[in-house]
């Protein structure tokens, strides 16, 4: 009976895990080892379990991220609309490669899979906002507006 109760508790803790990870990611900008340990303890889950979930989803990061996370879509519909030009332009403009963060912590730059904006390809996201029909001039303006 005791064992059964424990299992139930665990599933209740587990249930909240994704939501809590998301809140932590939003608040701290990434999920540090310390943060994951604390979450595991508070939910009664093992650290490995929490780490496993945190690293499964591409929107979570265990490394510090920039204030603005740029995700350029690399999938085929955007590729057909010359997303390579966009990727090269952002690389040059920010001086970093995909997967990196600018030294001032302002921008992180990633390539992502289809974001469901193929009718406005090439497209990208900055944090939760979507930008479509991109060209270097447009990106330049968008990047300047990021403070």
């Amino acid at each position, binding site marked *: 009976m005791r064992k059964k109760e424990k299992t139930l508790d665990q599933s209740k803790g587990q249930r909240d895990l994704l939501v809590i990870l*998301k809140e932590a990611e939003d608040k701290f900008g990434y999920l540090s080892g310390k943060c994951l340990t604390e979450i595991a303890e508070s939910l009664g889950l093992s650290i490995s379990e929490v780490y496993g*979930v945190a690293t499964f989803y591409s929107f979570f990061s265990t490394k510090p991220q920039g204030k603005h996370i740029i995700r350029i879509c690399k999938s085929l519909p955007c590729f057909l609309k010359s997303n390579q030009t966009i990727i090269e332009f952002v690389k040059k403009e920010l001086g970093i490669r995909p997967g990196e963060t600018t030294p001032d912590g302002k921008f992180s730059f990633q390539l992502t899979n*289809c*974001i*469901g904006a*193929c009718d406005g390809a090439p497209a990208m996201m900055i944090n939760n906002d979507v930008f479509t029909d991109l060209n270097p001039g447009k990106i330049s303006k968008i990047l300047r507006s990021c403070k």
Partner: protein
Amino acid sequence: MPEKQIVLRNCGIIDPKRIATYLERDGFKALKKAKDEITPDGVIAEIKASGLRGRGGAGFPCGLKWELARKSPGDRKYVICNADEGEVGTFKDRYILERDPFTLVEAMAIAGYAIGSNKGYIYLRGEYHYLIDLLTNAINQTKELGFLQHFDIDIYEGAGAYVCGEESALMDSIEGKRGEVRYRPPFPPTKGLWEEPTIINNVETLMNIPQIILNGAQWFSQLGTERSKGTKVFSVAGDVKRPGVYELVLGSHLRELVEGLALAERIKMVQIGGATGRVIPYEMIDTPLAFETILGAGAITVFGEDRDIIDTIYRTMEFLAEESCGKCTPCREGTEVMLEILGRFSRGEGAEKDIKILQELSSVMMLASLCGLGQAAPNPVMDSLQYFRSAYNNRMRKEIKAGVMR
């Protein structure tokens, strides 16, 4: 066959922020009719008779799914709307949610009434975070008018994982776990979310429900082909002049969609159903779009004459290898090996024996993978080998072609 709007009938007409505009378009009349005039079993019988099949790609009969869930014992049952639209080249559900969230809410309430559930979830992909306010607003306005008295809807946000569009991975994700695929059986209508009976329907499938209830199964089933009733919403992108969302009666020809509506010219091939879909050459442009032939979730990516087929297939496999959840070996390892081989071809270093390995690997993956991702991952490879074999032959290393091992 013509364009016809059932799913998109309110898109661009109602104000997605104001329920009053939805009420003017027969909003919530179907829910009222279902509850006042039809029993839950009657609703299910109507959906079964309509012939509505799942629009997320698998095409499972919707009414049968509901019936299984209704008959499964259990006090708590769940209705899940799959809004984790992640298939490459698909954006129809985004288009629908942006323009008509109310029909979805009404449909979920009807589903809840039919299977005996008082709890629904909309699993929204993290990339569509910007739709949360609009959806929340639609749910709240519906509540305020008293249409959700016995049914509660929560929005659950994904966090960037393609495989979570697969129903069992989706449920694991709602349970706060890694979105890994489950072994089946048991199937969700018997044991789904938290092991309770659960139905999971695509956004577009649900959008059909209110109209079927209002107009009757017969009205719906006279549209389409023998085994594909109603309409299908397609997302068309790639080398076309007018990318966008189009709704056609099932059985319409691909040519009508890509040339007639999206204004594509000089087509080399079309990828239907995204990364796990089919690749067909221009010669097959008159193929009807239906469950009997080719359909998927409705992603249509058009490739012009100067596009490189090997590069396309390589990029497709790169996506699948990245998004494989890793639980089963055929998919996890198979997609990686295929990617490696396709990489050789794209560098002009392919070999005849590589083709044989691709074929053998395909049959293993199709047979032994746990879910649709692994089972369908070889599709683009096999299709391209069938229709564009010369593209592979041209990328073989000369000395290997002659049979010399490296």
